[in-house]
């Protein structure tokens, strides 16, 4: 069932979709975090004399992570390490397919910075941020929803396969049209038996250069490149009321948690504490990145 995403419309964890008001999200998120922020600053810098915190990290996964530590998840990891008094040691992987099996479960590293909350292969923390999928366009070009006529006209729509964007492109009948462009974005590397990465920078770059009219991306992936375009690009959250061809919901917003080996409760508890202590700093990292943050949905009774 879990793998049955194309029939469930690309929904993995079946989280209820909430938070339609795009304009209202900032203060909702900021308020509690700002209140707690002072406290976390007081935690300050303590001596990093604990055992190393071994973080599973992609060596070429910007904007999340890279070997030079330039990713925002590298920065978050460093915050967590400081809060725990443990030096961060990144354990680099190149192939995303078997990170859990070959790294985390093999005992080579202990922590993944950005995972789906409640993922069945992992023990996960409470979500520490939430964001959404966005349309990235050149300034002055507006795409506000999937029924926008521009999406029917567009010569190139940049997207990452196996994302909600693929499900929606299938629904609006543009997936086959975009198929070869999708392959071109990775220089026709076949995905079979290997991990092929769609570089968010290249996708956003195609919008900037005019090659693509629009890119559909997970906001945290796009944010820094939109930011770096210095106002020439617009990023707009996609309304969260999408359904696929069969009428099943296609969530556009997702929460992100920390992940540890299944059953590693001790580390999870430490990390929950570190997250609470460094909320302000982590928020600053995400804000500096330019990531639009959304409030956690209220659990339904």
């Amino acid at each position: 069932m879990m793998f049955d995403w194309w029939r469930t419309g690309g929904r993995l964890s079946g989280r209820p979709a909430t938070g339609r008001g795009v304009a209202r999200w900032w203060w909702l998120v900021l308020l509690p975090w700002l209140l707690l922020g002072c406290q976390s600053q007081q935690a300050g810098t303590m001596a990093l004399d604990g055992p190393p915190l071994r973080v599973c990290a992609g060596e070429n996964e910007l904007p999340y992570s890279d070997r030079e530590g330039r990713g925002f998840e590298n920065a978050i990891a460093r915050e967590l390490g400081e809060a725990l008094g443990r030096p961060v040691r990144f354990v680099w992987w190149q192939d995303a397919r078997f990170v859990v099996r070959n790294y985390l479960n093999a005992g080579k590293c202990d922590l993944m910075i950005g995972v789906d909350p409640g993922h069945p292969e992992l023990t996960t923390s409470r979500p520490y941020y939430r964001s959404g999928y966005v349309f990235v366009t050149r300034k002055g070009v507006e795409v506000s929803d999937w029924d926008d006529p521009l999406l029917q006209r567009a010569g190139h729509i940049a997207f990452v396969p196996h994302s909600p964007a693929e499900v929606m492109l299938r629904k609006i009948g543009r997936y086959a049209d975009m198929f070869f462009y999708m392959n071109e974005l990775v220089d026709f590397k076949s995905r079979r038996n290997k991990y092929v990465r769609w570089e968010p920078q290249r996708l956003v770059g195609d919008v900037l250069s005019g090659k693509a009219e629009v890119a559909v991306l997970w906001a945290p992936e796009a944010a820094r490149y939109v930011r770096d375009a210095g106002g020439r690009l617009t990023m707009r959250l996609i309304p969260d009321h999408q359904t696929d061809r069969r009428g099943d919901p296609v969530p556009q917003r997702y929460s992100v948690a920390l992940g540890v080996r299944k059953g590693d409760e001790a580390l999870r508890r430490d990390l929950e504490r570190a997250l609470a202590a460094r909320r302000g700093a982590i928020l600053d990292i995400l804000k500096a990145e330019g990531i639009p943050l959304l409030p956690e949905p209220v659990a339904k009774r």
Partner: protein
Amino acid sequence: MPTMKLRLAVALVMMGGAVTGQANQKLIELSKKDSNWVMPTKDYSATHYSKLKQIDTSNVSKLQVAWTFSTGVLNGHEGGPLVVDGLMYINTPFPNTVYALDLNDPSKIVWEYKPKQNPAARAVACCDVVNRGVAYAPAEGRKPAKIFLGQLDGHLVALNAKTGEEIWKMEACDIRVGATITQAPFVVKDKVLVGCSGAELGVRGYVTAFNINDGKMEWRAFATGPDEDIRLSPKFNEKTPQYGRFGLGLKTWEGDAWKIGGGTNWGWYAYDPSLDLIYYGSGNPAPWNETMRPGDNKWTMTMWARDPDDGMAIYGYQKTPHDEWDYAGVNYMALTEQTINGKKMKLVSHPDRNGIIYTLNRETGELVRADKLDDTVNWVKYVDLKSGQPVRDPEYGTRMDHQARNICPSAMGYHNQGVDAYDPEKELFFLGLNHICMDWEPFMLPYRAGQFFVGATLNMYPGPKGVMGFVRAYDVKTGRFKWSVPEKFSVWGGTLATKGNLVFYGTLDGWIKALDSRSGKLLWKFKLPSGVIGHPITYEHNGKQYVAIYYGVGGWPGVGLVFDLKDPSAGLGAVGAFKELAHYTKMGGGVMVFALPDDV
């Protein structure tokens, strides 16, 4: 006004036929002369059989090297050379150089053609940058004899066979969408046919016919989509309605998935001049992950019979509806006449990647036999001869919620692109086989919100019989194997049979071997400079019989050696399966030619 158009087309074709039948006839005559080897399949029936018998079971052990030629290219050399009236034509993998050598003095190159190609082609090809051969068309009046070359970057080129000069060049496959040419073109009547590779990347498969003289496109027949695109005759599957008839190129796909549905053909053709039908197979559906393309995905994985004049399909039999294993159905088609159940029939036999050798009545398309190439084939229990449907074993399916172990055959198939031989006197096929199975491990990424990068990794390994290949003598009349010889590695390139009661073939680890075709007994072997993925040929020059073969390991099985890959799942799983190969052979590229010493 489609009928008017059709009539006009028929009239034009008939007029054309009167003029061009001659070239066709000449090619048939040339192919009957065993001094020549005028097409990769030897003849239109793809017998890969020669009546030459100077080399026979009594003297083959004395075979020695007559001469050699290095192509200067180190990738995998599939296919084999052509020999026409004293010249040998040699093709290479990318950059697809063609050489012509004079058999009177093979130490000197008569001409060479080095195409200028879009270098992007190199990156696009999935499994090494192979090329399966060139095609020859005889001279006709003032029009010179031609050599046709399919370039990896998607262009088809006509060369003057005597001088190597380019006569015309056409784009047959669009490299910008990931389509390449690895296939050997095929000349029939006044047309040259070629298909594309790239189903892997969603390339919608088709075969195109170009006029041999000016390169004008005559017709193009797709594997998927509307019936007009697929070019279905009004009689399509009239005699075999159980295979399905009209509208299925759309109906058996979800939405417009047929547009990126694959079904490319990069294998081999055969032609029956008496029935005036060409035969070939379309390949695997795309994308590779079956869960993303519900339906039968017609007409991928199909054995086709088409009219060469207009490309219209008379019948099509889909062997593997909704493929889950990448059993690309492009393997060679062998035309024979044999008596089955007391009835003499014109047959087409096709050892498929899926581990079944299919035999159809090639006039009607009816399924006559479907035998397992090895008793370990397990994805299918049997093929129902009436309906043509495979009866599957779900345990060996590749659904994304199912980790499948020991699927036989692997994605490489129990038979791949090799061209095998048929001895019409013994009524036996000599099949070069793979014996490789696989595990199928689905994976998902636990991160990147909402991006469920779902895929699978294949791990391939030698099959349950502990070797990776066999050569087998198969009798289609009984469905039995007369003999079977194991090989450490796959017999990838195919076999050659001669009237000297011999079967020749090359091995991945670089041996050329000769077996007694009556018993399978090994009579001679010689270690080549590099492994073999092509097929041996034989010809006669100045009264002497020669056997020629390409060496140059690579292709899918040798992809690990070519690109120095270490991860066992790399090269679509080939690296793990063939990791031993690196202990036996290294890259190379050339031709070796053997003959008996003068005193034998």
